């Protein structure tokens, strides 16, 4: 069990399951899944998603295509959690205020187990657990090192004032089966608010190593690593701000 905060900085947590092509998926799937989860996610919305594709083949040379597809978004009554459904894609999101891992995990379990009842899932291409944290720096003139153990280091020979920055690190986990992508960057309103985004994405790399039945166990393990990474990124000054 990780540390508990009264005011956690999570603005969105995302759990993604991407199925491989060996799983049959057709246009009836979103409707079938909706029937099973509509008590928790009654509100429907659709987004048009544009996909750009570049194909290089020996016979045809280079070809570029633009396609559009629809993604279904199923929202909870308060619009603070949702399920996204696209071709061979299931995503569960929770928005601020973060409802706790216990509740988020329940939503993930509901959506994933419902999908397994309507689709014969064969192989998983990707599972990912991602936490996006928006952190408003308490003191505008303080250095990032007062709050973070992961930040851009700028030597004394360079200007110390930053308008924007992005720093990103990827690390292997579980013997290379998984990977974490850790990013600290400025928010769109950084100049006014001194808000930064700490984005922790933990995902499966070895596609054949986790079966659909093992997916929820993987998610639990991923969450432990995300917690460790988060705690590794911040200092006690931020813990105090989050209300430990």
């Amino acid at each position, binding site marked *: 069990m990780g540390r508990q905060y009264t005011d956690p900085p999570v603005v969105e947590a995302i759990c993604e399951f991407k199925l491989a092509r060996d799983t049959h998926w057709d246009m009836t799937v979103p409707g079938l899944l909706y029937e099973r989860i509509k008590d928790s996610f009654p509100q429907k*919305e*659709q*987004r048009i998603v544009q996909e*750009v594709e570049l194909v*290089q083949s020996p016979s045809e040379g280079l070809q570029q295509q633009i396609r559009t597809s629809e993604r279904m978004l199923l929202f909870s009554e308060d619009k603070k959690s949702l399920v*996204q459904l696209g071709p061979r894609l299931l995503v569960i*999101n929770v*928005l601020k205020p973060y409802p706790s891992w216990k509740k988020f995990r329940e939503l993930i379990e509901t959506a994933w187990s419902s999908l397994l009842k309507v689709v014969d899932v064969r192989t998983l291409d990707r599972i990912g657990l991602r936490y996006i944290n928006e952190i408003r720096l308490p003191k505008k003139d303080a250095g990032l090192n007062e709050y973070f153990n992961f930040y851009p280091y700028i030597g004394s020979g360079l200007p110390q004032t930053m308008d924007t920055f992005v720093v990103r690190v990827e690390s292997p986990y579980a013997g290379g089966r998984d990977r974490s992508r850790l990013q600290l960057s400025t928010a769109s*309103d950084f100049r006014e608010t001194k808000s930064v985004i700490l984005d922790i994405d933990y995902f499966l790399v070895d596609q054949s190593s986790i079966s659909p039945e093992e997916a929820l166990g993987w998610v639990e393990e991923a969450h432990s690593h995300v917690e460790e990474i988060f705690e590794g990124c911040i200092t006690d000054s931020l813990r105090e701000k989050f209300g430990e």
Partner: protein
Amino acid sequence: MTVASTISDRSNKLLSWFGASSSKIDAWEIDGREYVPAVEFETVAITSNPSYNQTVILRRTEAGNSLFADVDSLLKELQEQGVKLLSQQEIRGYLLSFPALIDVTRRAVIAVLRHMPEAQLVMEVYHDPEIEDSYLVIYARLREYDESSLERIEAAESEYIDLLSDKEGWIQLSTDFREPESA
């Protein structure tokens, strides 16, 4: 030349054709087998080892799985286009409640800038004091207003208004007849 650098060279050519950085590639497919770029693009390319007689597909999806990241990216894009955002937190909150408007907002701004390239655009969430309703407003501010100003606003609006018909939330294009503020 090593295998890795040959592949990297091919990847770079494809990427430059694609006009994208590696982080924006969502899928990489060689002869029908898809490699999900959960790992970095170059690593996938080297691992998957494509040769020049294979068909390679790069795929990029213009919407991610994170609503917050999509909204933040849109807000950064709008700022780069010179749109003045009044209370970003409110705009962000509105778009997170009505995510179908993320793409429409992008299109609306492009339409206004096409019809009124000299305008300064100001965006805010408007709260209707009479009824419990709020919506996104884009004000087009001009140095000089004439009879064509409203016509051009209507022309720009007509380019995106149909996209709102089946969606919750609203984007109103208007003007407050103020002068553009200096940057």
